[in-house]
């Protein structure tokens, strides 16, 4: 038997995704992985938008547009972030977040 997925399933998934992303962001030491977990967060948001669009506000396009833009922006963000990380690697010879803690207090 198949379960027709409802709004709440999707929201559940997206929320889970969000927190997985957050958790990854908090725990991963590798900058790239942290970036990836941020992508997870953004995707959970996308999922939200789609879900709301489909179930609550059918016919409105705002959610979809938003999703598209989020994806685009995420790409841009990632690009800059990776550029910065590369530069960081140049100076620190590592992309481990724990090696970049000179600035404190």
């Amino acid at each position, binding site marked *: 038997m198949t379960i027709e997925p409802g709004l709440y399933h999707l929201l559940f998934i997206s929320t889970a995704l969000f927190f997985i992303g957050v958790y990854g962001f908090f725990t991963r030491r590798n900058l790239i992985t942290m970036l990836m977990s941020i992508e997870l967060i953004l995707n959970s948001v996308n999922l939200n938008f789609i879900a709301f669009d489909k179930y609550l506000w059918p016919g409105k396009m705002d959610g979809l547009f938003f999703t598209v833009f989020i994806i685009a922006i995420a790409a841009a963000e990632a690009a800059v972030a990776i550029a910065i990380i590369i530069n960081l690697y140049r*100076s620190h010879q590592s992309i481990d977040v724990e090696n970049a803690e000179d600035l404190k207090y």
Partner: protein
Amino acid sequence: MNEFLTLMKSELVLTGIIFLLLFIKIGKGMKNESLLSLIQLLLLLNFIFSFFFNKEGNLFGDMFYTTPLIAFQKSILNLGVYLISLLCSDWLKKTQHLPEFFLLMLSALLGMFLMISSGNLLIFYLSLELATIPVAAMANFDLERKRSSEGAMKMILSSAFSSGILLFGISLIYGSTGSISLPAISQLLNGSPLQILAFVFVFTAFAFKLSIVPFHLWTADVYEGSPIAVTSFLSVISKGAVAFIFITVLYKVFTPMLEIWYWMIVILAIATMVIGNLFALRQQNIKRFLAFSSIAQVGFILVGISNADYLGIASVVYFVLIYVFSNLAAFGVAAVIAEKTGKENIDDYKGLYKTNPFLTWIMALALFSLAGIPPTAGFFGKLFLLTAGGARAEYWFILVAALNMIISLYYYLRVVRAMFMDKNDNPVEPVKTAPVVKMALIICGGGIVLVGLLSWIFEYIKTLQY
């Protein structure tokens, strides 16, 4: 079409400049000095132009709108950018990527313009990112320094995280209201728990940008890591822009949740002032010091915002204007000294008055203005913020704010004392300041003194309808 030109003219002018720079970059390129003076000229024109042909209205189904107040806010930001381009010219001349720097800075500025006049969460989000990502790149601008890249990393990651949270909030708002256009949302809000949650998420994004405690932690590190030009841009321009849009969102969109955000602001304002001051007490590096002091200043801005009325808006805009002059003056002096001698610590400023009286006086003026001592403009700015904050007769709140002025005075005086009183066997040698820099510093000093005493400026801001 014509309307499009007039309403979006500041954005269009900015885009024009950006493209010009792009072409110059692609083309054979120019010597830094001439290019810099060209840019400065352009920015000056842009600043002057931003006072003319200001109409109000909205475009694209109120996705974009502008009013006289917004136009004025934009010209404040223009002024700030222009001053930065003057103040940091010593450093800018040296960098090999001058056009890129301005490309990034101006596109960030463009993002802020759009953000200020955005009438729709989508535009708002896009412009927010436009205002953030280039700055992260700028933070990394002196590529050799480890600290610079570290700061940039911290900035990009935290801002990405915060924008994730913001988006989550926006998605919830969309879910609960079914609209992403700000005017519509304000009609549809009903203060259900879900919306409160969404509001908190959105709120924190602003809090992050304004570096309100406890969302402020990135600030100091990034400020210290990045080159002074970027630091000053971050601390003055982006803070100002976010403050403006923050007010708009709170006052116009989340009006149904007034009670909630009032108390939120009160709590956060106190936390921000106290924490900012306590951290600023011990700082040695002047940039880090100014970072925390600017956090404390944001606390004061929040006091003004809590007013939820015209007075709040006017006082905040007025304060930001003053803040532009004061903070940029401080950063300018720091930039000059750091550029010439590489000294960035407060202890290095000991005995500065003996060698560089002019710089010392400007710095002192700036610090007094930040501390809110008359006759500088900062006194009026702070007082109006407190007046705005007192409107709800929560006197204990103002009292806490006022008492915080004591702590802040203490650490501002630390610098003054270092400059005027302390002995130093090898003080900063006499620094030769370039005429443009000198001019910029004088402009800042004049602004610090005059903006307060020329009361019509405040009156003008107050008349701008909104």
